[in-house]
């Protein structure tokens, strides 16, 4: 019997097992006719219409995302800095008030447990940090931080239910937000955050994102989420903003060369293996430089210098078949790497992928590299990441 095999959908559009969690904006998504998907236990909007149109809107105008599945964890207490420096690979002590930092949490063996953004919210007298984890890892991060807090005068608080998270991303986003807030957005730098009021709603306004565009993430009380969404839609629709789902978020971050946990980042890789050794700070503003994973990461740093591991590269298709996570990268009939993320790129108009490949094949322009797409070796061009960088 003829059939379209819909069950092979990567995100399991049709296969929902246990009852997923709903965000505060669930009713909004359903009213908009969104295609929903189970993502890390949450029922999230995959797309509202065409994911390519949503992608292009974020690149050229703006998109509005519900990211309430992200996991917020608040850390307070006199020893909050020492505790976070011990628990994370970055130097939390050097984050200024109102600034944010991209960092990671690793296991004792250096394997990545999650990548995180840490926002410093409080002054030195009353240290307060918000750690934002991926939805899929939020419980692990919470449990790990709680365990590592032993012996520190610091409190780890599960604030996952305290926040809804809306993101406005794209070149029109500053104008849209300015029409709804008195906050000083012009002086809000990339990777900074300040408390303010947006459309009458108290919000932590952060200039962060996962799309490669200028944009803002707004942490608000779940009870205010719908009011804020509606105000943003009213302000943004006239300048071309559209609701945007997780499908385009994935292609946007892929074009921007941003890693996704479970794909480019795993517990089997250290930050150095992922080409992100720069996030590891061996010298910290802290009581001591000791931190979880230090010895393993020092060894990994040395290994990365002396015997380069597989390197994360970009691949651009010469044909039209799309590489997917797990597909083999090949050269001369041999497997030389593995695709970690792949998708048709709306901006480039061609399929693209991120892949770990052997160092000798990692240089941009290396000839003879292909991807094994269901048995056929399709030619691919090796390029440096990212695929897309916005004009500032």
């Amino acid at each position, binding site marked *: 019997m003829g059939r379209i095999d819909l069950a092979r959908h990567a995100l399991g559009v049709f296969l929902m097992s246990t009852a997923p969690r709903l965000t505060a904006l669930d009713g909004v998504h359903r009213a908009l006719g969104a295609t929903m998907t189970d993502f890390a236990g949450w029922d999230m909007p995959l797309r509202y219409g065409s994911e390519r149109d949503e992608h292009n809107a974020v690149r050229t105008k703006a998109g509005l995302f519900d990211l309430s599945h992200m996991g917020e964890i608040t850390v307070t207490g006199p020893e909050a800095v020492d505790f976070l420096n011990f628990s994370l690979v970055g130097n939390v002590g050097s984050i200024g008030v109102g600034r944010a930092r991209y960092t990671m949490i690793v296991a004792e063996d250096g394997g990545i447990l999650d990548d995180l953004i840490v926002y410093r919210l409080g002054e030195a007298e009353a240290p307060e940090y918000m750690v934002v984890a991926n939805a899929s890892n939020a419980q692990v991060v919470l449990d790990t931080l709680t365990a590592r807090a032993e012996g520190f005068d610091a409190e780890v608080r599960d604030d996952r239910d305290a926040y809804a998270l809306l993101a406005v991303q794209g070149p029109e986003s500053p104008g849209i937000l300015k029409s709804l807030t008195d906050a000083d957005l012009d002086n809000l730098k990339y990777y900074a955050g300040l408390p303010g009021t947006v459309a009458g709603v108290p919000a932590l306004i952060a200039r962060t994102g996962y799309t490669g565009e200028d944009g803002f993430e707004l942490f608000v009380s779940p009870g205010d989420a719908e009011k804020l969404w509606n105000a943003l839609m009213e302000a943004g629709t006239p300048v071309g903003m559209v609701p945007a789902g997780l499908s385009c978020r994935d292609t946007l971050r892929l074009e921007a060369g941003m890693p996704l946990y479970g794909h480019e980042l795993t517990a089997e890789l250290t930050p150095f293996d992922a080409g992100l050794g720069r996030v590891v700070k061996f010298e910290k503003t802290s009581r001591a430089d000791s931190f979880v994973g230090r010895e393993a990461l020092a060894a990994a740093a040395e290994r990365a210098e002396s015997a380069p591991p597989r390197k994360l590269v970009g691949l651009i298709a010469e044909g039209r078949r799309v590489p997917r996570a797990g597909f083999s990268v090949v050269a001369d009939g041999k497997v030389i790497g593995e695709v970690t993320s792949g998708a*048709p790129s709306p901006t480039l108009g061609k399929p693209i992928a991120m892949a770990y490949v052997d160092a000798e094949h990692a240089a941009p322009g290396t000839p003879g590299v292909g991807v094994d797409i269901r048995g056929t070796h399709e030619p691919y061009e090796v390029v440096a990441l990212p695929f897309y960088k916005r004009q500032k």
Partner: protein
Amino acid sequence: MSNPQQLRYSKEHEWLSDAQEGVSTVGITEHAANALGDVVFVQLPEVGDTVTAGETCGELESTKSVSDLYSPVTGEVVEANQDVVDDPSLVNSAPFEGGWLFKVRTTEEPKDLLSADEYTEFSGS
């Protein structure tokens, strides 16, 4: 959306036109196209290929997934839609019209294809 009355449907979301001089047109339904999302690549059987009901004869790639294309009937392919190969978005924008996939001279047809009303009830849309 509405499923055209003059077509017949498989439970696997394909449509088949009534044969004209023995040749039927095959496509996927709007319900399936919406479920797939933006289709970016279509690989179709070639003219002269023999397709067999229930066996793979091509593939459809969308942003998030790849789906095998199975033939709803057994027969010989007499035409493949080059327009949809060149512009796969036709599958999304006009699944019952310009987004048709191939034409087949049917030699054998399964007996359990659905009417439009049956398919609408089956697919819920």
